[in-house]
């Protein structure tokens, strides 16, 4: 068939596959630079007190001079977040597979899962501190894990069950068993949903770890640093620690998004990455 218009399969460097075109970023960069400049200008021009909002230049300076303490604390808390993310997501994926396989179980349990999802889980942070030990990183991991669990469960389950009926009919016409249908239809179909959940979970894991720190923990933890510095009016230091948390959060999210783009190059949405 010579008349068909066929797009080339997306190829290119790792960068172009994972990232976007440089010019796509241009408007965002303009907004970022303008925002920072406004912040700096307003804080200095209106003589805003340091405890209300320090100028970005001061934050960045502290970020640099205190880099060793900050990154150590950041790494410590990132371990808590990452550990919790792994535990929570793994548990959620296993639960989703079980619920997708035995649908009556899902009908029985999902109302509770949805109700539990509406509970402000972060309120349990002091309790998990008691359960697993305030100084133990595991106590923060558990809070992060519980926060990650529900969005990953709900998304993955939706992906596993939102298969087109005709795809199942087709598999049945090949006399494929339930396991085959899972392996070749449901699981690949769930991948985009799963990654949506995994990305949301990175943010929740960071929140869980840091808030877990707020309720007490090792002096090495980032949340403890933020709380302590803010407590002694060292606002530049507190803000610099927040900056570390933000950078780590963005990197975590970005790393999962990059894995998503690499694993799902078949997905129609991957077209955007190649153009």
């Amino acid at each position, binding site marked *: *068939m010579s008349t068909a218009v*066929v797009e080339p399969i997306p190829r290119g460097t790792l960068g172009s596959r994972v990232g976007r075109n440089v010019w796509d970023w241009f408007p965002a960069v303009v907004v970022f630079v303008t925002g920072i400049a406004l912040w700096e200008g307003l804080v200095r021009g209106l003589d805003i007190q340091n405890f209300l909002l320090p100028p970005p230049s001061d934050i960045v300076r502290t970020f640099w001079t205190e880099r060793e303490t900050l990154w150590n604390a950041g790494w410590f808390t990132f371990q808590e977040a990452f550990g919790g993310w792994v535990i929570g997501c793994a548990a959620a994926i296993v639960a989703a597979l079980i619920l997708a396989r035995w649908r009556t179980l899902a009908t029985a349990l999902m109302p509770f899962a949805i109700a539990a999802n509406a509970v402000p889980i972060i309120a349990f942070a002091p309790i998990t501190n008691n359960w697993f030990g305030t100084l133990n990183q595991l106590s923060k991991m558990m809070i992060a894990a519980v926060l990650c669990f529900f969005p990953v469960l709900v998304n993955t389950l939706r992906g596993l069950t939102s298969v087109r*009926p005709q*795809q199942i009919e087709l598999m049945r*016409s090949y*006399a494929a068993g339930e396991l085959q249908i899972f392996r070749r239809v449901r699981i690949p179909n769930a991948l985009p949903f799963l990654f949506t959940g995994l990305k949301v979970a990175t943010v929740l894991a960071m929140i869980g770890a840091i808030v877990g720190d707020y309720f007490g923990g090792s002096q090495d933890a980032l949340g403890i640093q933020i709380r302590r510095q803010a407590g002694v009016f060292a606002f530049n230091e507190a803000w610099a620690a927040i900056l570390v948390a933000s950078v780590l959060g963005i990197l975590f999210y970005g790393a999962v998004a990059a894995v998503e783009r690499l694993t799902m190059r078949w997905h129609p949405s991957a077209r955007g990455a190649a153009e």
Partner: protein
Amino acid sequence: MSEQPNVVRLQNVSKEFGQGHVRALQDIDLEIRPGEFVSLIGPSGCGKSTLLRIVGDLIQPTGGEVVVNGKSADRARADRDYGIVFQDAVLFDWRTVEKNIGLPLEIMRWERRKRLDRINELLELVELKGFETHHPWQLSGGMQQRVAIARALAFGPPLLLMDEPFGALDEMTRERLNLELLRIWEQSGSTVIFVTHSIAEAVFLSTRVVVMSARPGRIVGVVDVDLPQPRGIETREGPRFAELIREVRRLLRQGGGFQAEEPEDEEQFIAAEEGL
């Protein structure tokens, strides 16, 4: 009539949806011999897709008997006697063209070497050589449908069930794929049951056209299409072709096919029935 065993024998088949509120099919008797190309045509909601699904054991009839290759429909499905093509190609986005075609072979645990050879043959058959590593979204609608046909033929099923496979394509693509389908049918020797809305398509492709009435779906009549094989572009131009089309149209009118259409809720019932 020859004494060959029937590929499909339907006796008194009926189907009701929603606890008998909707009678989709009533008293369907039909016998299909090996190598036949039988089209089912009728107004929307006449149950022709339902009938196809009953033959393919995707839904169960409420009454009557379905025998495929001398066995029950579920036995025939377990024996992989069916190749199915839907109106929508139903390709798997995450699989390339060759892996979509190879999917049934993977499930049937064909050895890799044998599988690749077969995929190659099929790519040639449906003229998709050079597109093996493309993904479905990189193909036009017509090409996607050819992948679906190749996939249905992959394991050489004796019975090919096609549910309006070209219904979503433009007229030119449809005519070209009609010709290709005839060529494939001749080469593969499969028996085909083909559901369509198009009178011309039914007459052009089939050895027999089964005309069905509006709900409840019954068989109004069967038109034997005696146009010579192999058929080509010139087939559509002859006076016999026009006569056969008039005959199908007459039967459709007799079955109420040209009256105001009833709402098409058959699909909803199917979905509800299967709990999908």
